[in-house]
Structures are given as structure tokens and as C-alpha cells.
């Protein structure tokens, strides 16, 4: 079986749309956010996801429903939940093997931003798949932070406004974990790309990604990658598992090429939008410049 591709990035870094694109390559299978890196066993993972409610669990439920029954109905999602609960003792590697067996000879494309919250999670992926490929997707800290706060506001009824939460620190922590992992990876096993760059010119960068992964970069494959909306996980799921990807992506998964071509990167200079009067911290500026943001 081929080694998987893990797209690693902080939350709100275009992982849904770019993971959806790469996952539609004919030789790949794009997973929703399965978050399997959070534990050594399925039970550990499920427990770790409990506080996130269906935001964290939807992806795995939808995937198992799709793989087991070819459909993502509410009944299928409920049966997937029961399947999980009976297999809490399964090691994470066994769960991945079960998924791979169902998918067949395709490259699994995993994009679970929660994996970057802890270095242990990232190392677990590397331990299970020593030869996996890791694609580090970056997004400007300003737009990442704004997007994070907007999503929290939309899905917490404004509750996020009362919580002491700084998306800049979330961005920094995730990036540091990713870079820490990268130091353990072999030359060529880890690659980084600015999400803004890829989305602004997918015809330039998708063939490069294919070449890196050893996948076909013929016209038909690239065309398939330009249609993430054809993924089984590019729409709102059943009531008990509605998510599994960015909610905005689920509501509007098709690429708007004209809009993508207009993507620009904001400046690192000036006040942080959510902390008026303050600039980005030095560690954030340092990493952002290292990633190519000005």
C-alpha cells in the first residue's frame, strides 16, 4: 500500500480546500478530518475529541459510514459510532490500516489540523508511517487569526468574545510543533507551501505537488484536483456528523478561480487586528518571514 500524505497546518489554513483538491487526484483518497493522531488507540482519540462535540468527531463518522455502507445517512453515521465504540482498544495504526484496506491502493490524504496542537500527535503519525509525506501548509498569521475568530464567533453564538483566546498563539504553537517534527524527517519527506500561493495559481503548483508525491501530473489528474466539490465529504453531513471539514468549505466547496486569483497576502506590519495597539510578537514575525510573508 502507498504511504499516506499528511497535510499539516494550524486550523484555518486552507486545509479543507487544498486537502480536498489533492484528495481528488485519481490516485489519492481525500479523508475528512479524522483526527486519528490524537491517541494511541481509537478510545484515546475518541476521548480526546469529546470536548469538541461533533466538530471533532464528524469526519471519522462520515468516513466510516461512507466506507462501510457507501452512504452518509444518519443511520449509517450512528452505526459508525457503534463500530467505533466497540473498537476503542484498537491501536491507531490498525484503524488506519482498516481505512486503507477499504480505500484500496490509493494514497490516503489526511488533513486534521488538530494533529498540530501537540507534538506528540505529529510524532505519532511519523511513528506509524515512517515513510509518509508531510505537506506543511501555511497561511498568513493575520488572515489565519481573523478567520479563526470569525469561525468561533459564528459557532459559539458570540461566546468566544468572552474567552481569553489569542489566535496568534495558536498559530505559533502549531507552527513550532510542525517545524519540530520536520527536523526529524528525511530530505524530501517534508515540504512547505504557502496556501495563498497554491490557491492563487493551482495550475502551477498542483503538478509540482503531484511530482513530489510521485503521482501522475497529467491533465486529467490536474482537472480532477480542481474539483474538490466532487469529494464525498465536500457537503454538510448527516445531523449527528455534519462537519468533517471547514464549515465554509462544506457550504461552498467549488473553486471560484477568479476569486482565488485575487488572493493577496496582508502585511505583517501594523496592529494585530484583534489586539489594537499591539504588533505581532517577535516569534510570530520571525516564523512568518521564514515562511515568506512580508
Amino acid at each position: 500500500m502507498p504511504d499516506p500524505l499528511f497535510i499539516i497546518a494550524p486550523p484555518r489554513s486552507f486545509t479543507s480546500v487544498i486537502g480536498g483538491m489533492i484528495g481528488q487526484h485519481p490516485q489519492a483518497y481525500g479523508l475528512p478530518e479524522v483526527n486519528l493522531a490524537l491517541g494511541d488507540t481509537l478510545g484515546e482519540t475518541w476521548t480526546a475529541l469529546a470536548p469538541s462535540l461533533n466538530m471533532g468527531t464528524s469526519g471519522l463518522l462520515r468516513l466510516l459510514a461512507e466506507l462501510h455502507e457507501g452512504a452518509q445517512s444518519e443511520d449509517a453515521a450512528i452505526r459508525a459510532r457503534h463500530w467505533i465504540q466497540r473498537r476503542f482498544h484498537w491501536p491507531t495504526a490498525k484503524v488506519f490500516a482498516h481505512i486503507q484496506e477499504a480505500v484500496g491502493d490509493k494514497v490516503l490524504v489526511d488533513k486534521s489540523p488538530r494533529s498540530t496542537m501537540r507534538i506528540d500527535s505529529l510524532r505519532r503519525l511519523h511513528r506509524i508511517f515512517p515513510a509518509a509525506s508531510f505537506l506543511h501548509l501555511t497561511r498568513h498569521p493575520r488572515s489565519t487569526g481573523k478567520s479563526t475568530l470569525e469561525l468561533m464567533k459564528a459557532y459559539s453564538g458570540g461566546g468566544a468574545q468572552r474567552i481569553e483566546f489569542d489566535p496568534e498563539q495558536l498559530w505559533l504553537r502549531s507552527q513550532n510543533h510542525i517545524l519540530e517534527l520536520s527536523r526529524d524527517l528525511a530530505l524530501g519527506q517534508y515540504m512547505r507551501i504557502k496556501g495563498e500561493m497554491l490557491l492563487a495559481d493551482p495550475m502551477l503548483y498542483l503538478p509540482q505537488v503531484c511530482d513530489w508525491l510521485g503521482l501522475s501530473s497529467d491533465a486529467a489528474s490536474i482537472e480532477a484536483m480542481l474539483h474538490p466539490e466532487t469529494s464525498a465529504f465536500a457537503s454538510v453531513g448527516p445531523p449527528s456528523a455534519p462537519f468533517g471539514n471547514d464549515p465554509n468549505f462544506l457550504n461552498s466547496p467549488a473553486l471560484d478561480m477568479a476569486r482565488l486569483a485575487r488572493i493577496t497576502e496582508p502585511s505583517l506590519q501594523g496592529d494585530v487586528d484583534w489586539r489594537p495597539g499591539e504588533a505581532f510578537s517577535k516569534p510570530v514575525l520571525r516564523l512568518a518571514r521564514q515562511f515568506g510573508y512580508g
Partner: protein
Amino acid sequence: MSILDAGQFVPVATGGLGHPGSTLAHSMVWFRDALYLGASAPAARGPEDLGRIHRLDPATGAWDEVFAAPVQALDEDAQARAVWLGGGGILRQRQPAEAMGRAFGICAMTVFQGASDAAHCLYAGTMSLWGGQVLRSEDGISFAPVMAPGNGDDSVMSIRGLTAFGGRLFALPSGTITAEGLDRERAPQAIVLVSDDPAGGVWTEACLPGFGDPANRGVVSLCAAQGHLYAGTSSPARGFQLWRTKAEGAAPYVWERVLTDGAFRYTHNLSTAAMAEFGGDLFIGTRIPGFGYDADSDVGPAACEMIRQRPDGRWDLIFGEPRFTPDGLKVPLSAMGPGLGDPYNSAIWSMAVQDGALYIGTQSWEPNDIAMNGGGAPLRGGFQLWASTDGEAWVPVLVDGNGSVTSTGVRALLASPVGLFLGTVNHSRLLQTQALLHGGGADLAEVSAGFDVWLA
């Protein structure tokens, strides 16, 4: 076409030729059938630590000191500047020297015939407390300045990168030194100077400051190749840029940007370093100042890369980080990562083409890391010399400072009729201090100070 092996290298100079403060064999040139070596004492402490030019007669193996910077008294401002050479900080408490050399380094040399030169002359760039200058010699024995200190700005510490192209001589102001501080990397202005008659002392600006981009904080490398003059920049916020010109018409010339954003490695390719033409292509080594970490701009640590620029504008990554770029997927053709696979190689300091092979010399901070963080362990590492006959397959020629752990860099390489000369950086004093402060240093008690020169 073959590559030298380690056994062919023999020492032709050791211990800074009797001057322990001469830690850098900084520049070399072949002139009048002899090797000329420019020596620098970048941490000059007193009147012994001078910029010097030594001449080696290859027939006899004898060295002559053909130039030593004149010693002059330090006024209050010069004393304040001098303290920074030792590191500033607590060292400011040390009794300042009363006199020092007019130059503490000879950081560039080339042979050039200007409009009023009767024959080819030897030109040398100096490092100075009072502003770097260009020296000129007709006979290789008598040297005289042909540039005002710092070309009119005495805070310009050095004149580097002397490069002949299209009947003109180009030079790079580098570093800034004032009573308030020292920046060894960047001059007050990021410019290239040019003169078609340096003996006349008139130099003009060959480009707009920073090539019109304020992100370029310095111009740090020059190389004539492919019918162009190439210039590499230092850009701590974006990564180096590479520019080129045919130098036609009057200065400032029309320049074309060839590479940007550190060849899309961004800040981890902060600056270019050595460059050389080989096989019709331009090879560009990169660098982060310091021990692979530039404290001034908070960049790194990261190891160096090498890039191959083709005449038609395409470029290849020879060793370094694989990456996606607007110019396509770049993977290292040598199959080696940054630093030739060694994270301590922070710069490609020197290049030379000898007998069909390209040689590159590194700067390694492994001994410094062990001195500061090794818990008193014996030091290891040192400079490396690598070579290739096709620019893609590379082999190590010398490693671990060729037996001298305090020789951390190959600062100069020169291809000559008598063989390949290699000049070192010897950081014995710095390493002794670093080791002593961290519980080590016993293994450094007997090491020699001052540069070495090897010939193969």
C-alpha cells in the same frame, strides 16, 4: 579533469605568518608570478593587528610582507570604534588601545588595468576604523590608497568584492562602524561602486541603493559571468536577491533582477556569499551571518545552500531544501540537503575552478556549538572543502578543518598556475573564550592562532 585529494594539500603558511591576530586569510590573487595574500585581524586589539599583504614566491616558498597598514594614534572617536571590534559589551571596560593600524584587514584583491594604468595593477580593499579604502600597486611592493575613506563616508568599514568587468572595476562598500556600534554585514547604503580609472580616485554608484528595493540591506557578492556582472544582496526580511547588468552606458546601469526571496527559501537564504562561473553557469552559495543565526535580524539557525543559475534564466538547486516555487519544483540535484547535509555549514565562503573542477569552501560553527553547549567536551568539526566536476555530484576533499578544529572556515580559494591555494579562518581565540566560559577548553591550550594557507 580530476579532483584533488586530501593528501595533496601541504601547508605553505601557518599561524598567520607570525601574527596571531591575523585570523583570516581573507583574499588572494595571482600577480606577477606570485601569490598575494590579504590578511585580516577582524578582532584587532592594538597596533600589532594590522591589515597586511604577504607575497609568496612559489619557486622558493619564501614569504615577504609587502604591505602592513601604517599605525596611527586613536582619537576619542576612533577608540570608541575600536572597542566594538573586540565585541563591545563588557569589553568596553577594557583599556582602549592608543594606536592601531590604518587598516585591520585586506578583504579583497584583484588585478585590473584602469584607464590611466600603464599595465595591470594590483588593487586591494581594506577594512578600517576610519573607512575602508581601495589600495593600488603597480609593482606589488608599493601600495597607495586610490579611494577616499569609505568613498566619502568614514563609517563604511570595508571595501569588498573588487571585480573587474567590461573595462571597469567594481567594489562593494560593506559594514558600518561608528562610535555607537558595529554592523559587520551592512554598509550605510546598499550600493555597488564603479570606476573605469580607479587610479584617478573617482568612484560612482553603479546601481540605485538596494537596486530600488529597501528590503536589500546590503550588496554582498559580485561575480562576472555569462557576459554579465552579477550582484547578490543581503535581505534579512525577504531573503537574498540576485541582480545582473551588462554595465553598458553610464552608471548607474540598467540592472535586471534574476532571483528574489532567497530563491524562494526566503529568510533562510538571507544573503548570497561566494559566487563563481563554472561550465557556463553561475554557482551561488548562500549564507546566514553569525553561527548560522543572525541575531540582528533574528533569522536562523539554518545551513547554507547552493544554486546554479543558467544563462537563460532557469535555475537549479544544487544542495538545500526541496521546495515548490514559481519556477517549478526544485529538488537538490546533489541529493544533499542544506549545508551539504551538515547543519553546521552556514556559508559557502569561497569558490574556485581548478583543472576542470569547482571547489567550494564552507564556514562551520560546529566547534563553536560544542564550545558553548558541549559541557566541556573536546571540540570537533571545522571547515570543509568539497569539489565537483559537473556541478551536481559533490565529494568532500577536506573535512574537520583539515586537522585543525579551530579552523572554522575556508575564507579564500585561488586557482593558480602552481595549484589551488586555500586560506583559512582560525577562530582559536574565540573558541578558547567560548570553551572557558562553559567549562571546557583544555584541548585548546596548545592550538595555534592565526590563519593557515594550504596548497595542492
